[in-house]
């Protein structure tokens, strides 16, 4: 059984897309599929430290992300070139990849789902 990549490119709080992408990741992991996550574009906002959405903005998805170690989802990637400049810190759960590593990573999966 090959590995699955869930690639998040949408902003976490503008709709349900990211919440439902994380739900899919959790279900896949629960069914013992090998899942990694990649973030780029607007999706990187989910990796920012110190978020505090209120109830109407949606569930605190970054908290959900922190629980992924219990699901054996250990690899969260983002491209180095898209790390935000000054003032915003990225969660230590994610590892940044050089352009080459990023491209190589994207080819390693049997299934890729983009949200």
């Amino acid at each position, binding site marked *: *059984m090959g590995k*699955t990549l869930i690639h998040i490119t949408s902003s976490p709080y503008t709709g*349900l*897309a990211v919440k*439902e992408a994380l*739900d*899919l990741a959790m*279900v*896949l992991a629960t*069914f013992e*599929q090998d899942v990694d996550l990649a973030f780029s574009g607007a999706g990187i906002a989910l990796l920012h430290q110190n978020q505090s959405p209120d109830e109407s903005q949606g569930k605190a998805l970054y908290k959900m992300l922190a629980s992924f170690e219990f699901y054996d989802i250990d690899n969260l990637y983002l491209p180095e070139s898209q790390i935000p400049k000054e003032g915003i810190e990225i969660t230590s759960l994610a590892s940044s990849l050089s352009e080459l590593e990023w491209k190589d990573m994207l080819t390693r999966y049997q*299934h890729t*789902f*983009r*949200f």
Partner: protein
Amino acid sequence: MLYALFIHGSPFQTKACHSALSFAKTIIASKEHQLKGVFFYQDAVLIGNRFNQCPRDEFDIQAAWQTLSKDYGIELTLCIAAAVRRGIISESESERYELESASLASQFQLEGLGTFVSFMNDCDKIISFK
């Protein structure tokens, strides 16, 4: 090859359900490929609302999928969690949530994402439409 389709774009705001329909028809028409089933996720589940009223002079994408399912025995599955939060409710969910009626259209069924995982394991390829 054995295929399953994974549709997650809204039937109203995107052409995901339309593109997937042509893809499904192509698989069915070909000799060397088979279609295992179709899984609708996110806003794509809106296709399964039996109260949808398509204007008479427009293409009825819901009816087109229902016909395909009937004619070729293709299973159309909506993610239960995604469907229920959007008001697509089967008879049994209607009872569970103590609602007055159900809204799931015929030929569609509600299942957990686990069904999709088994598609992933059983099929050679999953094709996404967003």
